[in-house]
Each structure stands twice: as structure tokens, then as C-alpha cells.
């Protein structure tokens, strides 16, 4: 703990994400129960919790991959509702990285990266290529630009997925268990990229089970269970002095091995 170089605490006063009394049901199953969350610009938030606790659903609501049924979600001043225009505005500014990478297998790495900038933001192709190459450089795989996703390892694919999301120059990045589908020896290369991204001051919300990563980069750790936010705190306090019994039980399970 002591030898983990802790990043400087970030987060300005400006609120970029606010969730007020958000509720959601899958059929009759109440999957999100009264979620209230404000995220400041530049803040890095880790969401953890047992499987089925609704943590993925929370971040999928933030770019309207799932639609909430009660309460309000406001992203960068835009309220997410049934208005398609609002949804598309939010999605331009919110990047997302998935557990299964979800690269487009019929396009090369470079084409994966420049697709959205050229088609959604109408960026000139040459400019998009330059941007994509600089971001591929940042995730340390510029030499793979002309290969196809199927030719890359899982860790490389996930780094491409991060670069692809960054190519839209988003204000906020969402990570949905980005290392859960990776072989153990590839987790580090992806986490290193994410730490690097955190250092740039990007607003990040990350669902993960990587507690070491949480300690290192998080400004705030949120623990969810049964669709509710049970506890949230700064990582130091969260890991050393959890208050709720459910948090203690969860931490004892994930930290014991």
C-alpha cells in the first residue's frame, strides 16, 4: 500500500455526470434502486461489487445503451431521455470500453479507429489517421495498425478498443470490466494504459475487480450490491476501514487470494 505511488487527487467543482434517483427494471426485476451519483470533471471512479449487483448497468445507462425508467441522468449538461438527438450528443462525448473489446472484425485496426471520427464528427480522413496513429502510439501498438482484430492478442485488442474510444476525443471514458476477459499475463499491459490515461486528467468511471488498480488511480471507490450504492469513499478509507458489513464481506472475498 505504502509503495503504491498514489496519483494526485483530481476533480474540479464542475459536475459532468449527475444521476438523481435513477431506477431501472429488467422485466419485474428491480436492477437499479435509487441511484444518486455526481461525478466531477477529471474524477476517477471505480465501481465494484458482486456479480449481478447492477454495476455494469449503471455505466451502460450513462451512454444510453440501457434506458433508465425513473429519475434523471444528466451528462455534460444534456439530459438523457427519449430524444434521439440528445442520446447521440452524449455518445459523442462519452467513450466506452467493453469487457469483450467489441472491435469490428471486418475492419483493420486503423479503420476501427478512424471510422467514428470520420463518419460521426466528419473529421477529414488524413486528420483522423494522424489522430489514430498518435493514440495507437500511446497504447503502444502503432505497428499493428494495418492488421485485423483477429490477428491480435486479447490485451492488444483491448488496448486498440481504448484507442478507438479515445479517437472520438471524449470528455468521459466508461470502462466495463476491461480486464475480465483477459489472460492474467495481459491484464497488466491494459491496466498500464489505463493508468496512463488517468494521469492525463480524463474523467473515468471504471467497473473492475482489480483492487490494486483501484487503490492506485481512484479518487473514489463505489461499492454496489443488489442494485444499490452501499458505500462510497476515498480508496484509502474504503479498503482500510469499510463501514458496511456487505462491503467487509466483499472485500474479504476479493482480497483474500
Amino acid at each position, binding site marked *: 500500500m505504502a509503495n503504491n505511488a498514489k496519483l494526485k487527487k483530481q476533480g474540479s467543482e464542475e459536475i459532468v455526470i449527475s444521476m438523481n434517483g435513477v431506477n431501472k427494471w429488467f422485466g419485474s426485476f428491480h436492477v437499479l434502486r435509487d441511484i444518486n451519483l455526481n461525478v466531477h470533471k477529471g474524477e476517477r471512479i471505480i465501481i465494484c461489487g458482486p456479480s449481478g449487483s447492477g454495476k455494469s448497468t449503471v455505466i451502460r445507462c450513462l451512454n444510453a445503451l440501457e434506458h433508465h425508467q425513473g429519475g434523471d441522468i444528466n451528462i455534460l449538461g444534456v439530459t438523457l431521455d427519449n430524444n434521439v438527438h440528445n442520446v447521440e450528443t452524449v*455518445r459523442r462525448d462519452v467513450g466506452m470500453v467493453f469487457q469483450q473489446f*467489441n472491435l*469490428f472484425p471486418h475492419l483493420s485496426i486503423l479503420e476501427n479507429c478512424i*471510422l*467514428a471520427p470520420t463518419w*460521426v464528427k466528419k473529421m477529414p480522413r488524413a486528420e483522423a489517421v494522424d489522430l489514430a496513429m498518435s493514440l495507437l502510439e500511446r497504447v503502444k501498438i502503432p505497428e499493428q495498425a494495418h492488421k*485485423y482484430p*483477429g490477428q491480435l492478442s486479447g490485451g492488444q485488442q483491448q488496448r486498440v478498443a481504448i484507442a*478507438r474510444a479515445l479517437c472520438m476525443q471524449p470528455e468521459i471514458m466508461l470502462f466495463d470490466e476491461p480486464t475480465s476477459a483477459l489472460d492474467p499475463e495481459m491484464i497488466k499491459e491494459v491496466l498500464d494504459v489505463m493508468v496512463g490515461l488517468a494521469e492525463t486528467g480524463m474523467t473515468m468511471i471504471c467497473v473492475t475487480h482489480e483492487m490494486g488498480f483501484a487503490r492506485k488511480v481512484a479518487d473514489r471507490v463505489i461499492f454496489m450490491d443488489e442494485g444499490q450504492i452501499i458505500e462510497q469513499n476515498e480508496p484509502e478509507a474504503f479498503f482500510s476501514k469499510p463501514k458496511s458489513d456487505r462491503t467487509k464481506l466483499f472485500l474479504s472475498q476479493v482480497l483474500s487470494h
Partner: protein
Amino acid sequence: MKTDHSTAYVRQEDAPLLPPPRNETGIIGWFNQNILSLINDFSGIGAAIRSVLMAVGTLAILYYSAHILWALIDFAIIEAVWSDPDELKRVVCTTEIAGGIQHNGWHGACWPLATAKMKFLIYGAYPAEELWRVNITGLVLIIGLVCLMFDRMPYRMHIGISMLTIFPVFAYIMLVGLGDWIGLPYVDTRDWGGVLVTLVVALTGIIASLPLGVVLALGRQSNMPAVRYLCTGFIEFWRGIPLITVLFMASVALPLFLPTGVTIDNLLRALIGVTLFASAYMAEVIRGGLQAIDKGQYEAADALGLGYWKSMRLIILPQALTYVIPGIVNTFIGLFKDTTLVAIIGLFDLLGAAQAAINDAGWSSPVQAITLYLLVATFYFICCFVMSRYSMRLERKLDRSNR
């Protein structure tokens, strides 16, 4: 070095990399694995019986395959009559006992018949002085298709788009005509026939049914109930009735519903019927491809802000269509052969023209029908086989995920 597996062990030198055993590679290996291994197992009574049956079966299949192949070569080439210099017509292709010049017991193809009927088989009753129009259209089509087959062809994209947009208009003007004033007098479609009709019906159906099928498949998956029900209803309607019924309805029943004086060309009616029929099948093939796409692809496209039409066009359809190339080409091949059904509403497609030629008393002989059917079958086989091979090439080319 002595190896003891029960205790700790460290390998000192790498085990050598060896070539595979000789009897598992090459022709000998193939024979061993595929033939010999099936017939030389005598380890028990059951295995022995199986081996013997397998050996007998293999020999029988070889014998009959060779027999059929030989009969075909014998009929079509060795015994066949190739020329009719004296214009004897039926006499040159009949045996002496039936009043001809061939020895009794002769049985071979009558190719002079095919030569004599060739023009009719290709153009039908298209006016002789206007045949150049069909030839030029066909030539442009062939040049265009050949250009599209080469990946490195310059302006390939432009050629492809022109073939789908300008060429149909060009073909219409050339084949139907604009009028005497420009030197392209109208040719009534009732005079069209043979390969011309077959290709017009098949190509129109193929080119029009693919985009229609895409639209119907997307519509069937739409979130909007009205669109979904409409598309589902359309697909189920056309899939639920036989093509012959469609053609009969178009040819016989449709005029009853039209106001007097309004007529729609018989060929056009067949074209519309065939196209709508094929597009329903196409839609279901493409829907299969859409369902094979991982949900994550839709989500990734959404998360990047692509929107419905862009994500369909750039992400979903390219993958879905690649998955179902075999199904799409299967539908094309089926459609190509189904065009023979237009003969029953009085259009003389290739098969219809061949039927008419078979009824020509001037060439009446026992081999008249077989010769022409053999010719027609060869034409269909070549066309379908080319499509099939091209689809396999396309599949390999587009299969990037497995490279």
C-alpha cells in the same frame, strides 16, 4: 540419460523436430487414410464384414461412375453427328430403319440440330436485323462482369456502380428500343426469347432482390411494430405461395383487376413477380446473417455515436452479408433456375425455346429432345457453377476474421 518421472526432472536438450510419418502425407497418405483404413480392418467379424462391404461398395461406385461418364462421352462426342453439309435435317440424325443414314443401333447427339436452332435458342424471335442490339448489350455485360472479377482493376468501384445504375437503363434502351427516329425501333417483348429472356429475368431478379431483401430483413428486425408487421407479412405472403402461382396470378388474374385499356407487359409482370418472390427468400437469408452478429457489435457502434443507418451500413451489414454469402448465392442459383418457370405463362426462355425446337417436325428424331436438353442443361450448369465458384472465392477474400 536415465529419466525418472517420479522425481523432479529438468530437460537438458530439446527433443528433435521430426517430419510426420511417411504414410500420412501425399497421395499414399491420402489413400491410406481414406481408402485403405476403411477396408483392411479384419480384427473381428463385424469389422471384417464392414471392410468387405466397404471394398465392394467402393468398387461398385467406381464402376458405375465410369460407366455413366463413358455413356455421356460416347453420346455427346464419339457417336455424335457434328455436321450436316447436305442439309438433310432429320435424315442425318436417324437410323436406316427409320429412314435415315445412320447405322441401325446408332445413338448419338445431333449437333447440327443445335447449330440450326442456335439463333432461336439465344434470341427467340427477336428481329434478325436488330440482333446487333442484343449482342452489344451482352458484350457490355460480359466486359463489365469480367472487369469486376479482378480485384486490382482500376476504377473498379465506378464500374460496379455503373453496372448497377447506368447499365440497366442502357440495356432497356437497347433491347426495348426508343423508336425509329433514333434507329432503335421498338421490339415487342413477345418476340424476345431464349437465353435473352433467361438472362433478363435472372439478372433483374438477382440485382433487384438483394437490396429489397436487405430492406425487408432490416424491417423485420425493426423496433417499430408497424414496419415489422408489414415486412413480416410481406415475407410470409411471398414465401407461402409457389412461384408458378405468382406467375399465373400476374399473367392471368392481374389484368382482371386493372382498368380497361391499361396493360402491363407480360415480361414485366413476370419480372416483378420473380423479383418480389426472390426478395422474400433473400430477406430471410440476410436475417440469418443479422442474427449471427454479436450484440457487442451493435453496442460498440451505438457507443461510438454512429446512429442506426450508419451502424447498419458500416458495421452490421458488411459482416452479416459476408456470413451469408453461401445462402445469398444459393438463392441466386435457385432464382436462376426458377426462371424456367416463366415458360408456363408463354414466355420463351431458354427451356421454352428448346421445347419449341424439339417440336420441329423437320428435325424429328429419337435424339432430338436429348440433344437439346443436354445443351440446355450444360448452359445452366456452367452459369450456376460459375456463380458457385465465385461465391467461394468471395468468401475466402472477405473472411478476414480468420486470417
